[in-house]
């Protein structure tokens, strides 16, 4: 635990000092939201519909945090030799990965609070409900989604090509969800963005408890976690493009 805490503390400082993290996780979703839903200033929708829209942006924030801030960042740490050097010092790579995940989880929680406070202030919504619902979504989805994307850190690509590619992928994944495509299919659950949105709909927005849907989502979450844990166990820490 001490080792994980030390890495958590280091990565939290990095999050605070690296302004790009704040830009990606808070400002991009907020700007996109305000551009697309500026009509809410005049005509605010019903609460249910508003939550449905906001869930899309909460999902985007979770996805950005999992893909760019965590998985791509771990990939960079592998390429720069940090992962190799500290896995020798700490005795394993697990404490580094968990420290990174926890630091980004805390950063995401703070970002989500900021996002919802701004939305609540601008559109006179209940900030407490917004914050609680978004935090519930993070609690259920962040860890499985981060673990699912851990395969990114095993990719044999160059460091400078991966960050733009995955920034684009994050947006593409959001637009490849069943609501956006207009077709409903369980196959869409291969897409973690779909998983987060479905959890948001099932846990936060829907008034009816659909046991089958809940079990499906729980199974998908477990599969994501198994994929992640196996990947972390087998991941090679040597750079695939640079000799270290």
């Amino acid at each position, binding site marked *: 635990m001490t*080792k994980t805490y*030390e890495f958590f503390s280091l990565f939290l400082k990095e999050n605070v*000092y690296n302004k790009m993290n704040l830009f990606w996780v808070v400002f991009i979703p907020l700007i996109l939201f305000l551009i697309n839903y500026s009509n809410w200033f005049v005509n605010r929708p019903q609460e249910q519909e508003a939550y449905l829209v906001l869930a899309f942006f909460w999902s985007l924030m979770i996805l950005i945090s999992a893909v760019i801030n965590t998985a791509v960042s771990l990939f960079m740490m592998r390429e720069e*030799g*940090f992962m190799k050097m500290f896995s*020798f*010092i700490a*005795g394993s790579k697990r404490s580094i990965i968990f420290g990174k995940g926890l630091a980004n989880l805390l950063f995401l929680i703070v970002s989500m609070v900021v996002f919802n406070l701004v939305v609540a202030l601008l559109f006179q919504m209940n900030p407490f409900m917004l914050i609680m619902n978004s935090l519930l979504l993070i609690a259920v989805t962040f860890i499985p989604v981060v673990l699912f994307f851990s395969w990114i850190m095993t990719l044999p690509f160059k460091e400078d090509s991966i960050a733009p590619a995955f920034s684009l992928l994050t947006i593409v994944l959001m637009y490849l969800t069943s609501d956006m495509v207009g077709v409903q299919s369980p196959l869409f659950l291969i897409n973690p963005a779909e998983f987060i949105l479905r959890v948001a709909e099932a846990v936060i927005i829907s008034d009816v408890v659909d046991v089958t849907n809940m079990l499906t989502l729980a199974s998908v979450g477990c599969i994501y976690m198994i994929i992640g844990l196996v990947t972390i166990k087998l991941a090679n820490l040597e750079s695939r493009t640079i000799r270290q």
Partner: protein
Amino acid sequence: MEIVNMDFRYQEGGRKILDNVNVRLKPDQLNVVLGLNGSGKTTLFNIMAGSLKPNAGELSEWVKKSEIAYQVQGVPFLNALKGKDLVRLFLKTASRPFDVQNPVFFDGMNEREQSLAKHLWHLKLGDMSLGERRWLMVTAMCALDRKLYIFDEPTSGVDPDSRLNVLNRLESVASSSGQYVVMSTHTLQELGHVECHIFLVHDGRIVFEGSYTDLTSVHQNPDEAFRELVRS
């Protein structure tokens, strides 16, 4: 620690990176691996650390991963971290004691090193010179109490004064009982200032093994001696 008749190639049927290599590390001296770029120095280190498995040969007295400190070149750290934060990170993640008020870290340092360490303790990494950062990192690694220390070009890009500081620290750890310290470098002149045992890797083989005095016995300039060995 000894490597015996070791072969290594990255791909089946590919070029041999190491060919029948024999290396016996000295426990009481700084072991230095020299070689041209791409000669197999880092591969040799990775085999010693257990990160790569050789195709043939054996390693006697295999050191467990938890007993190895392996410094990799060019790992970036947040500039806002202070010297004490960096030392804390190294020590605490290695389950070593760390006390910011009364650092055990300073134990075993001479007066000059203590003065440098105290100067860097509250200084941000971004305000340190490259040499100061390297020295601090090497010193923090040396405080980990490991069986095997591997340093990949720890003096690369560092000014002469800082280079000697780094080398003196490594020499001091090497002289402790039962610990192996091995490093690589391209700056041969610096080796004249420390007690070291040199291995020169070329074309996958060890073409020279001995002291700095042995290396410079024919040519006083170590660069000339190096050149002659890799050309012969």
